[in-house]
Structure formats: C-alpha cells, structure tokens
C-alpha cells in the first residue's frame, strides 16, 4: 500500500474520536445557532404571552431552516467605498474564532476535540476573545459612521469586561488548581461541591461579564438598534450577515460552556456524591421515555395523518433509545457503556448550558439597555474591584483550609461575607462619587451658560 495513504489511515485510526468531534462541532453548531434563535423568539414571545413563530412546521419548528434558506438567496451587497478585502475577512474571522475555541470545550467525559490539552480553559477564553477583532474590522471596513461607532463601542466594552471575566475565572481556577477542562470537572467531583457554591461572587461576576462579552442585552451597545441601526453589521447582508449571527450564538455557547465547566460542575449530575440521589442518573432515560409517552398520547389527536405518523415515529425511536440505555448500563465491558457515560455526561452538560443561555435570553427581555457611561462605570468602578477582592478572598479561604485546617465551607462562607461587605462599600462610594460628579457637571454647565 502507498505509505502516505497508510500513514494517513493510521492517523485517522488513532484520532478518530477527536476528528469526529471537530467535524460534529462545525456541522452541528450552525444548526444549534439557528434553533437558539428560534428559542429566543419563542421566549421573547412568551414574556408578553404571545405565541411566536407558528407558521413554518408544526409549532414553528422549521422556521430556522426557512430563515437560513432566505439568508442564502438574499442579495450580497458590498458598499462602494468599503475596503473589500477586510469586509470579506471580518465575519470569517469572527466565526473561525468562535468555532475554534469550542474545540477545547469538554461536552462530556469523552466528547472533546482537543483532548486533555494542558491549557484547556485558557485556550477557550483566549481564542474566543479574538472574535471582537472581526467586529472591529467589519465596522471599520464598512466605511459607515454607525458601523465604526458600533465597532469602537465593542472594543471598549471587550477591554473593560474581559478583565472582570478573567479575574472571575481565576477565582474558580484557584479552587480547581488546574487549567485542564476534564481535571477541573473531576476536581469538583472530589471536592464534593460545584464551585458556584464555593465562589458565588466569582460566578455572579462571570455571568455579568460574559453577557457583556457576547454583546447581548442589556449590554448590546455595539449593535443597539435604536441608536446605531445595526451597529457594526449595518452594511452586511445575506450570507456574511449570517456569519456574524452564527458567531454571536456560537460565542454564547462558548461562554456558557466555560461557566458550566468551571462553576456548575461540567457534566456531573447534581450532587454527584450523594447516594440517595442516585436515581438522577436515570433522568435522561426517564425523560426520553416521557417524551415517547407524550407522543403516543398526542398522536391520535393530530389533525393530519402525516403529523400523527411523525409522532408515532418519534415515540418509537425514543422508546428504542431509552431501552438500549436501560439494558446496556449493566454491561460495563461493552463499547456501548463508554458511549452511555458520554451521552449521560453530554445530557447534563447541555442541560446546564441551556439553562445558562436561558438566563441570557430572560435578562435580554427583562432589562432595558444600559447607557454607555453606565456600562463603563459598572465595569470599572464596581465589577473589576469586586472581582479582585473576590480573588483575594478565595485565596484567603484556601489558605485557611490548607494551613489552619479550617472547614472549607466555613472558610469560604466568611470570605464571601467579607467580599459582599466590600461590594456594599464599593456601591456606597460609587453613589457618592457619581452624585459629586453630577453636581460638578451641573455646575460646569451652569458656568458655561453663564459665560455664554
């Protein structure tokens, strides 16, 4: 056999799991992004008790596919005075950064493209922070005032909030003692706690900073529709626009995965060490069986014959899959058992990621947008000092635990209380400062008026 072909085959044989994961990420994430948009529209509709998209597919389930088709056949226009090379490059850069950073995320015990990479979490955070370069370049290349303002806002926002996110991650990494994604999750198993309970302030600051980093409401100033048309993507249409869209949703998945891995226990089930909660291990199977039962129940009531056939098919396949899991779990030597662990892990991981993303959507429709100087004040005056204090607090708690053999929970409780006290003081100082600043601004305006 040809030696080159042989070495390629050997390479594929060694790395087929990783290659499969990489291909799956690139293929499936665009689909997931489309369906996230559908979920977002449904949540948005649900807040004021509307129905949302209902026309395409049974309850609007085929809407993302229709949207994708529409975007692909739309006219792809480039402004005359745009910088064509950079205009082409910018959305590609955003998408590449978002999808590449997903390679080191462990979606389950074995579903990870860059397996056991030593710098795991740093890789995810570092590579995904390249995405805003695409935003800035796109805004600049469009040669449009709204675009450039959106791009500059995005830069300022990223620089301000990346620091907070970094410090919040440090507080979790101090507890885990490693950067390796798998080792972080395993550390939470051996520590008998998700790190959200040991570092609650770290998790809250990370949540806020991650919303700001993905440019989502209430921090969606780079694309604020009421001020900047569409911000940095004003001039983009068709497929290029959909690349930016894909990058935004992929980034949401990335930050949610980082938060889940570090603070919410990754692919572990809730309370992984409590034995009487062991029945939770069966939750994915039970859920599948419940879906099947629901489909059987509803199948007879469908108006069209095709719909009830589809319902029967869904019910049958979910029953088959759940039966496979029930009967495969005792035989741990089968290759199916490994897959079984992986799928269970992926179930819990994706459940937590979905909850995290649901919080994003909930906040988007519940809160009004910040003004830019409010955004900056929140970032620099409150969140960054708070995250710094929190890192010191977690370090003190760890020292108390290891040097003076305090109970871990007691130590973190006291340091969290101290951190919250510091947060209260920060808020009071900030109120005083902003009151003084407002007074100063008023008096200077008055002087200007007087002089004028």
């Amino acid at each position, binding site marked *: 056999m040809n030696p080159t072909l042989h070495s390629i085959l050997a390479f594929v044989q060694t790395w087929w799991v990783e290659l499969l994961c990489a291909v799956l990420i690139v293929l499936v994430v665009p689909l997931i992004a489309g369906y996230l948009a559908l979920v977002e529209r449904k949540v948005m509709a649900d807040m004021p008790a509307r129905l949302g998209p209902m026309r395409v597919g049974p309850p609007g389930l085929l809407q993302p596919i229709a949207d994708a088709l529409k975007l692909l056949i739309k006219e792809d226009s480039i402004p005359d005075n745009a910088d064509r090379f950079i205009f082409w490059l910018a959305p590609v850069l955003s998408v590449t950064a978002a999808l590449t950073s997903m390679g080191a995320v462990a979606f389950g015990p074995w579903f990870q493209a860059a397996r056991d990479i030593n710098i795991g979490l740093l890789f995810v955070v570092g590579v995904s*922070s390249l995405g805003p370069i695409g935003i800035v*370049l796109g805004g600049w290349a469009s040669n449009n005032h709204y675009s450039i303002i959106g791009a500059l806002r995005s*830069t300022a926002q990223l620089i301000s909030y990346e620091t907070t996110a970094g410090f919040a991650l440090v507080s979790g990494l101090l507890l885990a003692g490693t950067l390796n994604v798998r080792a972080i999750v395993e550390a939470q198993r051996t520590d008998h706690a998700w790190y959200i309970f040991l570092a609650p302030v770290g998790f809250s600051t990370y949540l806020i900073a991650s919303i700001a980093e993905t440019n989502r409401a209430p921090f969606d100033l780079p694309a604020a529709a009421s001020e900047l048309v569409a911000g940095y993507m004003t001039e983009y249409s068709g497929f290029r626009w959909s690349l930016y869209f894909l990058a935004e949703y992929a980034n949401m998945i990335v930050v949610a995965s980082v938060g889940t891995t570090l603070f919410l226990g990754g692919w572990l089930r809730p309370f992984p060490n409590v034995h009487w909660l062991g029945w939770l291990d069966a939750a994915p199977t039970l859920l599948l069986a419940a879906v099947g039962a629901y489909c059987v129940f509803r199948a007879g009531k469908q108006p069209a014959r095709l719909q009830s056939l589809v319902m029967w098919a869904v019910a049958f396949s979910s029953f088959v899959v759940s039966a496979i899991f029930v009967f495969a779990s005792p035989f741990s030597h089968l290759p199916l058992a490994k897959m079984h662990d992986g799928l269970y892990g992926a179930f819990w991981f994706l459940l937590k990621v979905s909850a995290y993303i649901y919080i994003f959507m909930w906040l988007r429709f519940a809160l009004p947008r910040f003004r830019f100087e409010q955004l900056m004040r929140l970032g620099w005056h409150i969140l960054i000092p708070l995250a710094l204090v929190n890192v010191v607090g977690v370090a003190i708690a760890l020292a108390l635990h290891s040097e003076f053999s305090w109970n871990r929970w007691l130590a973190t409780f006291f340091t969290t209380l101290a951190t919250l006290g510091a947060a209260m003081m920060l808020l009071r100082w900030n109120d005083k400062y902003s009151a003084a600043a407002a007074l100063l601004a008023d008096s200077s305006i008055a002087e200007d008026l007087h002089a004028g």
Partner: protein
Amino acid sequence: MLDSVIFYFFAGIAVISAALMVTRRNAIHSAVFLITTLLATAGIFLQLRAEFLFIAQIILYVGGIMVLFIFVIMLVRLDVPLPQIRSGLQKWIALFVALTVGVEAGVVIFLARKAPGQGLLIPNPAPADKLPPNTEELANSLFRSYLLPFEIASVLLLVAMVGAVVMAKKRTEAP
C-alpha cells in the same frame, strides 16, 4: 517529518505576512498582517509543545492588536498621503536598526555553524510525550526561582499604569 512540515508552514506564513505588513500602505491592512504573523508565531510555539506560551502569545499580543486598531482608527489620518508625514531622518534610523539586527542575527548563525553546541546554548531535546506540564513548569520557575525579578517587573508595570492615569487625568483647579 510532521514536525518540520508544521514548522515550515508556520514559519513561511510568519515571514510572508511580516513582509506584507511592512509594505502595505494602509495601516489597518498592516495590522491585519501583524495578526497573521503573531498567530503563525504562536503556531510555532505549539509545534515546540510550549502550550502556555502559545496561548499567552494569543491572549497578550493578538488580543493587544485590538488596542492597536483603536490607535490606528483614532490617531492615524488615512487620507493624508504617506510622503508628507514621513520625515527625512526616518530612513537613516531605519537603516541603522535594520543593519544592527541583521549583524546580530548573522553573528548568531555564524557562531552556531562554527561550533555546534558551543557558541549557542542548545538544550537537549526532550521526548515529546514525556514533557512535564507546561503551565506548572512555567509557574514553578517564575514563582520559585525568579520571584524577585518577576515582582520587580510587576511593580514597574504598576508604576507605568499609575503614571498613565495621572497624565490622563483631567486637571481641575482647586475650588
């Protein structure tokens, strides 16, 4: 075999985009090619199994390009033709710097050719699968062996930061 292919791939990209970076007339295009150069250098770090350096390169340098973009957009006037803003002395300074760096590189290569392993410090290659974890090694050498230089450097950076804040502060007269 695979290692050298990867090395020449990244090295080629780094050199070509560095040349493009210098020759572009548009400052934003230069910045884009600077990104490519830095990413290719990060790829070489990865090929050398220095994962932490790889990601530090990406976070610190490529991430720092964001600020460079801001400088270009806000400070450089792209509509002014280049010859007007180029001073006459610049050419000679650039020539001097290029000559110095070229002579340095030449001497290094010459010494390495002349006495392999003596003119330069060439450490023994470690087997790729038995390398100690990169991050931990770096942390140990930074915080155990070289703690004092590390702290001095961080104090220096802090001084620079405070100085920048003081310089940028709005001067208001005492009421």
